[in-house]
Every structure is written in structure tokens, then in C-alpha cells.
């Protein structure tokens, strides 16, 4: 299971890297979304899979899943959700104001003389 997850995470990171390196702003945002999904899955996998029980069934439970990675992922998901929402609004506003979403045209040269 861990091996499979490793491949899934690797593919997510690969797609994310490809999208982030493209020129269109929207693709970049989707790329950051995939990147944080990959990171969250990695966090889950790192906590250990295949325990086959709910987290914390009392002190005498024969087996239980580590609840901490789940708590961490929940926090991380909420944060990345907020940031992605902000990023989308920023991209829309920037597109309206600057008239382009092509990163090539968004280079800044103020103060460079």
C-alpha cells in the first residue's frame, strides 16, 4: 500500500511541477493545488497505513490508527484551501487589472537601472 501511495504522490508532484512551470496563471494555480494534495497524501503515508482500525478506541484497543497525521492533514487542507481561494481571487483581479495571465508578460523591471 505504501509503495502504491508513493507512486501516486510522485505522479501528483510530477504533474504539479509541470503545471507550475507553465506560463498560464490558471495552470500554475492548479499546479499548486496538486502540489499540496501530494504533500497531504505524503503526510498521511508517512504516519503509516494498513492499521485497519479507527483512531483511538481507548487504551486497551488491540489496534488503532495514529490520529496525529490526520489532525495535521486537516489543518494543512484548511490552510491550502484558504490560500488557493485567495490565489484565485488575486489571479482574477490581476487579470482584470493587468490584462494578461501570461507570466512572461508579468516580469517587473522597476528600479533596475
Amino acid at each position: 500500500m505504501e509503495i502504491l501511495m508513493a507512486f501516486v504522490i510522485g505522479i501528483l508532484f510530477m504533474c504539479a511541477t509541470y503545471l507550475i512551470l507553465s506560463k498560464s496563471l490558471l495552470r500554475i494555480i492548479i499546479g499548486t493545488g496538486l502540489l499540496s494534495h501530494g504533500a497531504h497524501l505524503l503526510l498521511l503515508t508517512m504516519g503509516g497505513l494498513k492499521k485497519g482500525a479507527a483512531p483511538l478506541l481507548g487504551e486497551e484497543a488491540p489496534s488503532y490508527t495514529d490520529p496525529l497525521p490526520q489532525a495535521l492533514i486537516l489543518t494543512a487542507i484548511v490552510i491550502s484551501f484558504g490560500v488557493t481561494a485567495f490565489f484565485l481571487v488575486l489571479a482574477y483581479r490581476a487579470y482584470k487589472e493587468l490584462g494578461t495571465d501570461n507570466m512572461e508578460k508579468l516580469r517587473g523591471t522597476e528600479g533596475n537601472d
Partner: protein
Amino acid sequence: MINFLLLPILIPLITGVLLMFINKHVMLQRWVASISAFVTVIIAAMLAHKVHTEGIQTLNLSNWDAPFGITLVSDMLSALLVLTTSIISFACIIFSFRGIGQEREKFNYYASMSFLIVGVNGAFTTGDIFNLFVFFEVMLMSSYVLIVLGGTKIQLRESIKYLLVNVISSALFVIAVGYLYSVTGTLNMAHLSERIASISADGQLGIITVIGVLFMIVFGLKGAVFPLFFWLPGSYYAPPAPVMAIFGALLTKVGVYSITRTYSLLFYHEGGTIQTLLGVMAVLSIILGVIGAIAYWDIKKIIIYNIITAVGVILAGVASMNEDALAGSVFYIIHDMIVKAALFLLVGIMIAITGTSNLKQISGLIKNYPGLAWTFFIASLALAGIPPLSGFVGKLLLIKGVFDAEHYWTGAIVLMSSLFVLFSVMKIFINGFWGKPLTYKGEEKAPVRQLMAAPVILVILAVVYGVGADFVFPYISQAANILVNPDLYIDAVLKE
């Protein structure tokens, strides 16, 4: 008062929430924001005194004993940085009354500022590595708002890059925490230190080095260390002066603090790969920073590149890892926060007068604004480290430590960098203040007298900090002592 160390986080948080409800009443917002910032300064000073007399303060949130719950830890380093942060935020808020404009003030400027302080103080205080991530995000979220607030073209364009860099570095942070958790099974920094010590004793250094380097990349991105500084000159250039001041003084220093903390507490067992890497990155940051500072003819860019130099100098001390060098680093980081904030605010006033940041279009300001000129002059000398001002004491200790650690090249480069830093700021002084006075459009509208209050407070503080170094030194050496002996920190948190 067991919850005392929570107050520098709690007060700005409550203020921020309150300010969001009164965002159309500008005068009321100013009063609330400045009084709350002032109270935070007093509380932070009391906290520093308490840590000095009673030792490290810890607080286990919700009474979950460490290492199971989230622990807040206030040792001398974090208490001093919280105090400096509070002072700088107070100065920037005072400056903002006249320096930011009503339009921005009406759109939750002070609230974002308060939340930024929550994040920064929290990052300095927390003793849990995932909680550090959360406070980083609080800080970054408010910084996104502050950098884009106003919505001018340049701000929108640069915010996109700033946001993208930080989203990627946050993802890397989560990955690094995940790896660390899978290897050690804990997130409490004191507990992590113990576990990593036992893993290193087993001889499995490789994985620890990998995680250490990953953390170095994450914090290096926030702290603008070479080669991860590339986003900084563009992004910090965009927002108005008070925001630039608070970014330049605080945000990069949070990255530097995190490197110092994780490196001195977690990765000191590690064979020396990270130490070498850190040393090389520090030296390259210094060199690149001075090249940038000398090359540009834009006053904002010159000061911005000086941030990178300062980060390099501080990390050069950290990489030497002995008590003198660390004391120097701690002294220098506080000095740099105060002086950088003052310089950014002064540059802000210059731009408010002249309407440009191009040094070639500014001349002869000393004729009409002698106060501004001499404040800038003192701040420049302090930045470069001319005795008896504050930069000198920090650099002296730091260089002594670096030479003791036999990093002679690093020491030489730190010494040489002071000259170039002096040259870069004197370039502003000579070209901008001397020469034939020019008249500028909209000059009479600039409220120079009111704006001067905040930078003057900071510069006086920098002078007192340098002249009164004897008085400050016990605090600094206590901070360095804990960095050198992580067992003190671990014992205080885990109470064995």
C-alpha cells in the same frame, strides 16, 4: 500568571478581530491598534524580564503534557525577538497614521497588521514544529493581504510571485514535517531533539541530514538566503513604506530564527554537512547582497539588498556554532530588525517628499530636511557597524566567534561586507542629501514632521542598544547559552 507568554500572541489576535468590526472608523482603528501595540510592547518587556530572572517559561496548551500537546516555550531568544517585533510593529503602526493613506486604512490594514504580529510572535514562541508551520501560515496569509492591499498594478503582479513562492515552500514544509514525523514519531521540538540524538547514536545520520537540508530549503526560502532569495527584491519593492518596513524587518528574520532554532536544537548531532552548507550559503548571501546594494541606483532596492547581506551575516554566526558567535548573531539580529525598520521608514519619507525612489532624481534634501538627513546618517552608520552604535557590538562578538571556529574566510568576508554596506548607504546619503536642492512636485503635502516620529524612536533605540550594550549583554548571553546547550531547553520543556 502561567499564561503570561501567551499574551503577546493573544493581544494582537483579539485586537485584529476587533479591528475588523470597526474598519470604517479610521480614528478609532488608529487608537485601538496603537494602544494594543503599545500594551504588547510592555507585556513583551515584562516577559523578557521574567525569563531573565526565572528561566525558560513553558506553557502546555489545554494541559496536555509535553510532548503530547502543543507547547509554547519562551526562552531568552524568543522573548527578545517577541519584544523587538512588538516595538517595530508599534513604530510601523504610528508611521501608518500618515504614511499609508485612508484608502488602505479603511480596508482592514490595521487588522492585517495585527494578524501578522500574531503569526510572527507565535512563530517565535512555539515549541512544536507543526505549530510553527501553522503560525507561518498565519503570518503569510496576513502578509499576502498587506502586500496586495491597494491593488496597484505592480502590487498585483509581485503578489502573484510572492504567493507562488510561499505556497511551494509551505508544501515543502508539510513534506519535511511528514518525513520528520515518520522518522521520529513526535513533533515537539524538545522531544524531537532527544529522539534525533538517539537516532544519530544508532548511526543513521543519512535520513537526518536529508530532513535537515529540506528544512534548510524551507526556512531559507522564507529567510531569503542565497540561492533562495530570488523572489525578495521584486516582492518587497511593491508595497508602501510601512509594509515594506515590517516585511524587511520581521518576515525574513522569522526564517532566520527558524534556521537557528532547528539547527541548534535538532540537527546539531548531524555530522557537519548542514553546518558547511549553512556557512557557504551565508557567505554567498553576504557577497550577493553587497553586489546588489552597490549596483542599484534605487533607494528601495539598495536597502532591500542589504537585508540579504544581514541574513548572511547572522547565519555566518549561526554556522560557527559557538557561544560568542551565537551571542553575536542574537545581538545582530535584534540590531538589524530595528535599524532596517528605521531605514525603510526613512526611505519611505524620502519617497513621500520626492515622489520617486530613483536616486539620480533626488538631490540636496539636507537643505530643507536636516532632521531627516541626520537621522538617516545615524541609521546608516549603525547599519554598517560604526562604534559605538549597535551594529558594531554584534559584529565584534560575531567575528570573534567566527575566528574562534577557524572560519577565517567567513570572518574576512563579514568584515569586508561592512565596508561595502557603508558604501551602499553612504551612496544614498551623498547623492540624495548633499548637492543642489531640487524642488519636487507635491513636496509641501508630505507630512514629514509627523512621519519622522516612528523612525526617530527606532534610531534612538538603536543608539541606546549600542551604547548600553553592557546592560543588554546578560540577556543576549543567556539566549546564546541556551542555543549552545540545548539540554537546558529540553529539560525546561519536558521537566525531567
